[in-house]
């Protein structure tokens, strides 16, 4: 009898504390539409260069964020091959005034992550930066302890000095099955109440897009499935239309033809999402990136093809995704009959003027790095993938993407250039 009463008291205390805790969680929040950037009238500006500088290494999954001083910090992973134990998360800062990338540094590795998390980590992958409402910079990146990417978890580090130094890593717990499998790729966003939205996706057993919501301390407070398993929606990108309306675009990994990116939308601040449907954008099972312009148009960077990743395009929609126009084909190696080596040389020289005009021995290093990857296995396989597009407060755009897994390429352009391209492309 006494034991029963003690159990009842224990229950009352436990659930009393639990209900108190539940009451402290933030409620439903609205989206924050893209700020109306003041864009000074300029002449069209576009320039490209490589953000990464390490030779004879594999790089992939670039992302970027604007720093408080108007510079842009990029992140990507780099190592002997994707998924290798020597892969590390690299970062560099681009100064738009100087038009130059700074020194490439390592911000996280398998070893540093394992040491900080106090558990075994076998590899690291996709990094995605975010800025929380308190101004702190965060980096979310994929970590795996066992198996392939399907066994991924997300690890977070934060910085109070804009990425010069980083906190000890913390693990986000997002799945009940040994915390597998959640991965990041799309750009995070802030809700109106200061909580952070993190678009993520699941790859184990079945593939589907999800949305995490994190409080101001970086703790996961909600997880929402955006599409059912088996519908092939991966790597969601969120486009906010207003406080209540948003659209998600995703990579499509299913087998339904024609292969098109999936889209889903909400009308109530993300409480409910429509079922995924095929969008107007082709998708060869590859990541895409998109932003909402101040005037409501959408700008996307993607592989505008049903299969392969040997072209990359910038596309614009003025009707919220119903139709898209090509702004510029940024890379295109489709169906070319020319020999591989001259094509590599031409693509390399067009990508970065500094590399093109570098001393012969420096250029040879870049060329050899590119040749080894593009011509691996005796074929001629170009790959332009994993775009990550951001717009800065000044209105400039920065697009980073994987250039043949050898370099991270950076395209810096402005709205005037987009308008010029649209005028030139108009029938």
């Amino acid at each position, binding site marked *: 009898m006494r034991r029963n009463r003690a159990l009842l008291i224990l229950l009352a205390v436990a659930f009393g504390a639990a209900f108190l805790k539940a009451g402290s969680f933030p409620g439903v929040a609205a989206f924050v539409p893209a700020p109306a950037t003041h864009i000074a009238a300029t002449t069209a500006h576009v320039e490209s260069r490589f953000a990464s500088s390490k030779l004879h290494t594999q790089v992939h999954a670039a992302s970027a964020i604007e720093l408080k001083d108007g510079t842009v910090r990029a992140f990507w992973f780099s190592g002997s091959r994707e998924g290798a134990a020597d892969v590390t998360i690299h970062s560099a800062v681009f100064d738009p005034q100087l038009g130059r990338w700074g020194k490439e540094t390592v911000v996280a590795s398998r070893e540093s992550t394992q040491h900080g998390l106090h*558990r075994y*980590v076998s590899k690291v992958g996709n990094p995605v930066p975010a800025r929380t409402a308190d101004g702190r910079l965060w980096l979310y990146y994929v970590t795996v302890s066992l198996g392939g990417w399907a066994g991924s978890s997300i690890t977070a580090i934060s910085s109070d000095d804009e990425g010069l130094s980083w906190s000890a890593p913390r693990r986000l717990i997002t799945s009940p099955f040994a915390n597998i499998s959640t991965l990041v790729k799309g750009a995070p966003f802030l809700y109106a109440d200061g909580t952070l939205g993190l678009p993520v996706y699941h790859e184990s057993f*079945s593939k589907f897009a999800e949305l995490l919501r994190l409080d101001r301390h970086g703790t*996961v407070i909600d997880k929402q499935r955006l599409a059912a398993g088996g519908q092939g929606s991966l790597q969601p990108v969120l486009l906010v239309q207003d406080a209540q309306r948003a659209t998600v675009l995703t990579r499509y990994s299913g087998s339904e033809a024609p292969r098109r990116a999936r889209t889903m939308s909400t009308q109530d601040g993300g409480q409910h999402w429509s079922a995924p449907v095929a969008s107007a954008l082709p998708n060869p099972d590859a990541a895409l990136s998109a932003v909402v312009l101040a005037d409501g148009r959408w700008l996307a960077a993607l592989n505008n093809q049903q299969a392969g990743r040997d072209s990359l395009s910038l596309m614009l929609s003025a009707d919220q995704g119903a139709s898209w126009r090509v702004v510029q084909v940024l890379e295109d190696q489709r169906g070319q009959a020319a020999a591989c080596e001259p094509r590599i040389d031409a693509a390399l020289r067009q990508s970065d003027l500094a590399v093109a005009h570098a001393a012969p021995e420096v250029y040879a290093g870049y060329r050899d790095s590119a040749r080894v990857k593009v011509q691996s296995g005796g074929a001629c396989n170009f790959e332009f993938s994993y775009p990550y597009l951001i717009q800065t407060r000044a209105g400039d755009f920065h697009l980073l993407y994987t250039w043949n897994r050898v370099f991270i390429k950076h395209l810096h352009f402005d709205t005037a250039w987009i308008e010029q391209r649209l005028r030139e492309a108009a029938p």
Partner: protein
Amino acid sequence: MMAYTDLTGLAGVAFALGVMLSRLPLISRFAVARSWLVAGIMALALLPVSDLSLAGYVRGVSGDLSVTSLLLLGLTLLSRAHPQRQGLLLLVAGAALALYPAAMGLGSFDPYRLGYGGYAALAALLLLALWHWVRGNGLIVLGLALAVSAWALGGYESANLWDYLIDPWVAIHALFALGRAGLAALKRRGGAR
């Protein structure tokens, strides 16, 4: 500096290693009390070897162990054949079947989301606990109360209540134990005929 949630997570894994390894014939033949054996194995498992402890290696794969796991391991350590153990395993197996297939992608509803502190889920859990309390299932009530307390206090790095209630390893154990018990019951019935 190590976060306290790393301490709790590692300690849980080390405890599981201690309880399980102390049952091995090779180890159990040492003529010391079982609790000392467990404590010794725990200490060894937490000792860093080339940057990471054995518990850290295991935790990388296993994740943190639920309060239910620790409770059952505690019963094992005490060698108590608790009469309500079967009932607790049944509840764990039921929860696992309700949670894991859907959470890993079956369908569009994710029950794991309920674990992020919704009032409805907490109320349902409270009703379940009260029902078991009325029926005198003290072990289940104790397990639920400890798990909910640990979640409310933020005992692990997970903010999701499910991770305090069950984990895949206790789920697998429950399903196997119940399956074995079911087979044994069938055999007995066959033998009686």
